[in-house]
């Protein structure tokens, strides 16, 4: 009996994936555990190892194609075996996904995910959505192969182009017109009578899976979660001094301020479990574990890998984990289980000199901390001016989960840890 290889679900938010590369060809023999394809999920490009052994009877999905989870992508079996029936019967892969199994529905929120600021991110969804075939509009657009290729090369979504061919088929001329600006002649000039200005057209972009996920989840977050924001200015002189000491004492361990923030957040969450919580649609769910996620910018967007059980770790442990996560995330080498599962997110734009910003809560969490840069500025101590190290953080909170005082108390505790960092190490 032929085995249908279906597009695997390689992340908990993955609804569809792209065959980035096939490592096998029709006729090849495949062993169990052999890497057969690279699959681009909404998060990363994953190596996909075969669960089954056999000869590759057919490659169903081509490189570059987008398919919903469960779509047959290849067939394994014995050489010469008739697989058409099996293949026909397997079409349900995507259909099965279109109707999530009931028991999965409530649980799917169990690992809600952190979020960051302007860079949204996604991981786990409170409500798993069916991998509706229509989710990738481009696959449903009638387009000539050339138009499809040209649009892809230009980074334009076919679904944004109006087709002028038979039955609305998008053809080369339409893509050309879109590239040039809706057929209006593309880059050109306009004049107000005195001066002439160059005009350039808008360009609809082809979205990566990650960008699509971010767009969707951040839209949901902003629309559904009633955010409120609390800002506090922290004295970081103690933290700076401690980091200098640690650097000297432990030259092999590179500890960043962000590591200190992450650990401080974890310790504060331990004291304020009402902040380590989220709204599941009906009620507040308090998380048992503390997994502080760190927003990491990658090429196509950002992801939020968690430092698991953060509050139980030492600062140097945290530092080691964040370094490893950051490096692998940027190399697209992070497996899905390391990318998801945060219960609170820390987003830090201090390295860009951003003093303060407001972040959007990652659905599945109750708050997010936006961390600004450490500033050198004059501060008044005991009535006298002296040089100081200050850092502003902003906490965005889900008002359904907590009120202003709860958030404020959390920030006060956090301030305690960061201004007297030795307390974290106690």
């Amino acid at each position, binding site marked *: 009996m032929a085995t249908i290889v279906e597009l695997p679900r390689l992340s908990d938010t993955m609804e569809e994936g792209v065959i980035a590369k096939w490592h096998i060809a029709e006729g090849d023999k495949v062993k169990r555990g052999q890497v057969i394809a690279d699959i681009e999920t909404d998060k990363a490009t994953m190596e996909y190892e075969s669960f089954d052994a056999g000869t590759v009877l057919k490659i169903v999905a081509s490189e570059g194609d987008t398919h919903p989870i469960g779509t047959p992508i290849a067939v394994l079996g014995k050489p010469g075996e008739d697989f058409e029936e099996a293949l026909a019967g397997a079409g349900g892969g995507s259909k099965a996904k279109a109707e999530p199994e009931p028991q999965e529905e409530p649980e799917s929120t169990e690992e809600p995910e952190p979020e960051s600021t302007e860079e949204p991110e996604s991981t786990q969804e409170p409500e798993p959505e069916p991998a509706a075939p229509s989710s990738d509009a481009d696959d449903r657009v009638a387009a000539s192969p*050339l*138009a*499809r*290729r040209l649009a892809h090369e230009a980074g334009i979504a076919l679904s944004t182009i109006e087709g002028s*061919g038979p039955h609305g088929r998008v*053809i080369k*001329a339409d893509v050309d017109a879109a590239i040039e600006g809706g057929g209006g002649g593309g880059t050109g000039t306009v004049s107000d009578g005195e001066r002439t200005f160059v005009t350039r057209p808008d360009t609809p972009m082809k979205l990566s899976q990650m960008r699509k996920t971010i767009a969707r989840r951040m839209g949901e977050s902003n629309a559904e979660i009633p955010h409120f924001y609390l800002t506090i200015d922290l004295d970081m002189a103690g933290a700076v001094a401690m980091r200098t000491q640690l650097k000297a004492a432990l030259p092999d361990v590179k500890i960043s301020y962000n590591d200190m923030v992450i650990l401080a957040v974890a310790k504060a969450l331990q004291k304020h479990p009402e902040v380590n919580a989220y709204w599941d649609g009906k009620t507040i769910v308090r998380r048992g574990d503390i997994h502080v996620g760190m927003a990491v910018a990658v090429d196509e967007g950002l992801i939020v890998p968690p430092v698991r059980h953060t509050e139980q770790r030492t600062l140097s442990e945290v530092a080691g984990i964040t370094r490893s996560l950051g490096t692998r995330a940027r190399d697209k080498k992070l497996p899905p289980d390391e990318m998801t599962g945060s219960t609170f997110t820390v987003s830090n734009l201090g390295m860009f000199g951003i003093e303060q910003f407001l972040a959007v809560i990652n659905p599945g969490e109750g708050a997010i901390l936006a961390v600004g840069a450490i500033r050198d500025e004059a501060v008044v101590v005991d009535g006298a001016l002296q040089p100081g190290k200050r850092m502003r953080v902003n906490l965005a909170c889900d008002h359904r989960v907590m009120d202003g005082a709860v958030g404020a108390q959390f920030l006060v505790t956090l301030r305690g840890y960061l201004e007297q960092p030795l307390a974290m190490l106690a």
Partner: protein
Amino acid sequence: MPILQIREALREAIDEEMERDDRVFVMGEEVGYYNGAYKVTQGLLEKYGEQRVVDTPIAEAGFAGVGVGAAMAGLRPIIEFMTFNFSAVAFDQILNNAAKLRHLSGGQFTIPMVFRGPNAAAHMLSSTHSQAFESFYCGFPGVKVVSVATPYDAKGLLKSAIRDDNPIIFFESEVMYGVKGEVPEGEYLIPIGQADIKRPGSQVTVITWGQGVPITLEAAKMAEESGIDCEVIDLLTLRPLDRDAILQSVKKTNRAVLAYHGWPYGGTGAEVADLIAREAFYDLDAPVERVCYEDINFSYAENLEELAIPSPKQIFDAIAKVAYHSL
């Protein structure tokens, strides 16, 4: 440059090759005393005598097979079918002997011979005499298949065919023997396996051969008047295909139309369409169109035959369709 009819160009090719190589001979019905049913072999009997210009009884299987045997023994036969419709009688000799004996003998034998004659529908001859045989003869290995539509190509390719050491199926056209064109004086050869761009263009590739060539050029002219710039490729050799010429053009124009005398089911038209679909898929801006015979046995009645054969207008319509040109 001298202007010759296709029949004269073919005759020059045969004449020159017979002059050049005394192993070359012509055999077929009415090729000698009658001077050829279509006058291709006119005067050759007088010049070369009965040994080398051989009239046969009506015995296609016989003289096709004799040609195969003679070729194996070192001669270079040109076997004329009065029409390729009659080659059906000799099909076994071509399929099972000419095309296979080199392979079967492990390369001991070569079969240097040409089967030539008119192919495809002429005018009101009904079903048994109106058949295009390219799909049959291109459908198996061991032969090369050539189809010509101009005097220049006819001469240059027939000479190459005669010199080729393989069995060559060489298609001419009953209705095109009188077509005139320039043929250079002196020796020249056109390599088998190379297509010819009969009309360069940038917007639509129209691939054709044989009797399809003149009607396609006419359609290209109609297209030009409508602002569509067509490139017309005459395949000339139907097997092996000049893949590069086809793909290069389609990658340039992004559109392809096949226009030819032949049935739609299988055959060279389907093969070329398949090639384009596989090798130039992402260069296509429109589905490949095919304009060819209707999938029916031909009728004698003029109006019914006309409907079954591709017309310049139909080809033009296909060109306009792939160019998304609204009419």
